[in-house]
């Protein structure tokens, strides 16, 4: 099984719940799931959707065309109908059949124009019924089901509004069409509405009715079940985690010994702090809860980074979490941490910029910013995770590296990770906690002592007298502008980059996927890796040997390690979600060699597996710069 399902509706109209029901139900049936939510910034009622991919093998990306489309409103059908494959399935409420497609209240004028041309071009009548005729002509099975009718029957005599369970109704219909048994939907409802008995009860009544009536009215059992094979997957539940990227980072931080987290609310980072605040507990060796990490919402990001620096100096593992606009404000603090060799961790979720840009959309356009932000020169680590599993482990490693090398560490992520939900094997995290060189201080303690390995033993604030300013300093930390001291201190800080490259293991520098013999090498990073790696079997079937190199350590840049992979490739192609090809730029800078082709996407939507395949086809056809625009 490898199915792509889109369920959409007005933001705030139950799309999130519908998507999560779908994700939970299919995951509990033993399948692997990857789901991403696309939503507007702060505008209630705007079109939003959940794209869920369900497969019997691990998946880390979405793929178009979709097999099934569920619409909570006419706009969803108007927006996504052309993304449904021939022979796919579309489900919606019969009650909307007379609605006019181009009269969707929240549709952007640009989208409206595209819709008008599409309708004209395909000769589709501008109503849901008209669209139905077109879709059926394309071999799409259309189920216009009286959802609101059924729900209003069930809710008769109650004061519960019909719209409240519409999402459950459509999701149940989709799962029923796919052949999943009802108890799987029940389980999803139990999990999603835990502790709300009344809500669970009503939703189960709706599920019952939909399952029953769907069978009778459409006799879907044979046609669709055979194709979608949902009934094959049950009682095969392996224990796995179902989590969003924000949760993954939160788990990693907690396991990694986080004690102090600061943040100022910002999309798509804030959920991570909320998750830590809600669920993290610290146990002693006897297994008793002795407290929880402190999570503080500060007045702004300048304060957030300052407080996190303070926590790190006191000796607890401290982090702050933000996205582009917040990081912009943190840059001054980052430099302060640089000159003072503070083991600060900044978790950085990229979103569409510049300025407020596309706050809720995906982007990988801050790679160079995270590497170069700050005036003056200092060593830092920038490590980019490519999936949820990596995000958990990297969150632990970021603390280790920050303390081992006493440098600020930026954990670089993106919206695609933050807001995607996926099944992950329960990780047994066996990364030891390494706190680096720590001493108790004493009378002659010098915080910035020059040592052979360039790392000064660190005493926590309160254990020894130590001086911190933003100025250049001598070994004690006193302000000092002597040229020779300056040279020594400057060199000490800068040479850490060399030490880092020596000590960080290869698996944290880059990861290779595919056959060791290849002609084409796809360079990628962050969550774009998911689509590229998922596309690998198809790419190789096209007749050219292709492999993938996912770069993880972005600063200091592991040029030596990467050079081996690049050297044995006839064609190097970078794939990333920005305009310039920022990873490609880094590679070109280090190797004095042009990256042959760039595949780029900057629409704010994630790169999908099918786009990687079609882009590579175009590259083989001679294009050197391919810009992707898929997804709504």
């Amino acid at each position, binding site marked *: 099984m490898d199915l792509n399902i889109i369920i959409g*509706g*007005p*933001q*705030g*109209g*139950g799309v*999130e*719940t519908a998507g999560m029901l779908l994700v939970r139900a299919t995951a509990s049936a033993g399948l692997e799931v990857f789901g991403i*939510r696309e*939503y*507007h*910034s*702060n*505008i*209630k*009622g705007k079109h939003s959707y959940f794209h869920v991919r369900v497969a019997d093998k691990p998946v880390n990306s979405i793929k178009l065309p979709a097999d099934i489309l569920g619409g*909570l*409103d006419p706009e969803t059908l108007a927006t996504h109908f052309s993304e449904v494959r021939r022979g796919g399935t579309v489900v919606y*409420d019969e*009650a*909307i059949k007379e*609605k006019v497609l181009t*009269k969707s*209240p*929240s549709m952007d004028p640009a989208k409206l124009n595209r819709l008008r041309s599409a309708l004209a071009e395909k000769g589709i009548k501008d109503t849901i019924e008209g669209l139905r005729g077109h879709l059926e002509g394309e071999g799409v099975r259309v189920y216009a089901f009286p959802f*609101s*009718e059924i729900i*209003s029957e069930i*809710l008769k005599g109650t*004061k*519960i*509004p*019909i*719209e*409240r369970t*519409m999402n459950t109704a459509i999701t149940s219909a989709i799962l029923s069409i796919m052949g999943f048994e009802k108890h799987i939907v029940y389980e999803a409802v139990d999990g999603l509405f835990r502790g709300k008995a009344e809500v669970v009860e009503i939703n189960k009544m709706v599920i019952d009715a939909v399952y029953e009536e769907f069978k009778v009215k459409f006799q879907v059992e044979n046609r669709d079940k055979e194709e979608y094979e949902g009934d094959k997957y049950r009682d095969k539940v392996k224990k796995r985690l179902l989590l969003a990227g924000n949760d993954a980072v939160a788990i990693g931080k907690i396991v990694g010994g986080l004690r102090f987290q600061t943040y100022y*609310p*910002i*999309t*798509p980072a*804030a959920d991570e702090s909320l998750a830590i605040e809600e669920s993290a507990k610290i146990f002693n060796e006897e297994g008793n809860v002795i407290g929880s990490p402190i999570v503080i919402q500060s007045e702004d990001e300048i304060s957030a980074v300052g407080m996190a620096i303070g926590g790190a100096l006191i000796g607890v593992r401290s982090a702050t979490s933000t996205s582009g606009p917040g990081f912009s404000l943190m840059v001054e603090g980052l430099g302060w941490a640089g000159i003072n060799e503070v083991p600060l961790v900044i978790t950085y979720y990229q979103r569409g910029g510049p300025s*407020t840009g596309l*706050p*809720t959309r995906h982007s990988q356009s801050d790679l160079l910013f995270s590497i170069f932000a700050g005036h003056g020169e200092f060593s830092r680590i920038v490590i980019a995770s490519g999936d949820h599993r990596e995000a958990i482990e990297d969150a632990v490693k970021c603390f280790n590296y920050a303390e081992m090398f006493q440098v600020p560490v930026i954990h670089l992520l993106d919206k695609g990770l933050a*807001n995607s939900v996926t099944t992950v094997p329960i990780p047994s995290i066996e990364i030891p906690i390494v706190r680096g060189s720590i001493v108790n201080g004493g009378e002659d303690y010098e915080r910035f002592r020059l040592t052979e390995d360039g790392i000064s033993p660190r005493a926590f604030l309160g254990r020894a007298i130590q001086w911190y300013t933003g100025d250049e300093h001598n070994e004690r930390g006193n302000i000092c502008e002597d040229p020779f001291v300056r040279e020594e201190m400057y060199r000490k800080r800068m040479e850490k980059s060399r030490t880092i490259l020596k000590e960080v293991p290869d698996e944290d520098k880059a990861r290779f996927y595919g056959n060791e013999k290849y002609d084409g090498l796809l360079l990628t990073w962050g969550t774009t890796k998911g689509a590229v790696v998922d596309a690998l079997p198809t790419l190789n079937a096209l007749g050219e040997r292709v492999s993938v190199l996912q770069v993880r350590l972005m600063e200091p840049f592991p040029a030596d390690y990467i050079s081996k992979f690049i050297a044995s490739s006839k064609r190097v192609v970078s794939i990333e979600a920005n305009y310039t090809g920022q990873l490609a730029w880094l590679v070109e800078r280090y190797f004095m060699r042009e990256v042959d082709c760039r595949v780029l996407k900057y629409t704010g939507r994630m790169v999908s597996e099918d786009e990687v395949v079609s882009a590579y086809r175009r590259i083989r056809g001679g294009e050197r710069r391919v810009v992707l625009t898929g997804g709504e």
Partner: protein
Amino acid sequence: MKVCKECRWWRPDAVLIYVGECERKQISTKELDGPCEVFAKKVESEFMWCSDCRETFHKSEAKRHREHNTYQEVHVDEDVHEYISAGD
């Protein structure tokens, strides 16, 4: 047609525009339900709701919504706590 969507007591849901609430009967109905005994024609009031534009408008702006689906008021389900991600 004396259906809900033509009635002054009916308020369409703010997001799912084809279902709504009857203010008189305090029940949830669909836009084409009816006819029923409390049906009454819409009246012009200072502020109306346009479900095509998904906004409240003042009667001075009525021209802009002439061909649109307009209602006395809108229904917002305050008990729906579906998580809506902030976008700032």
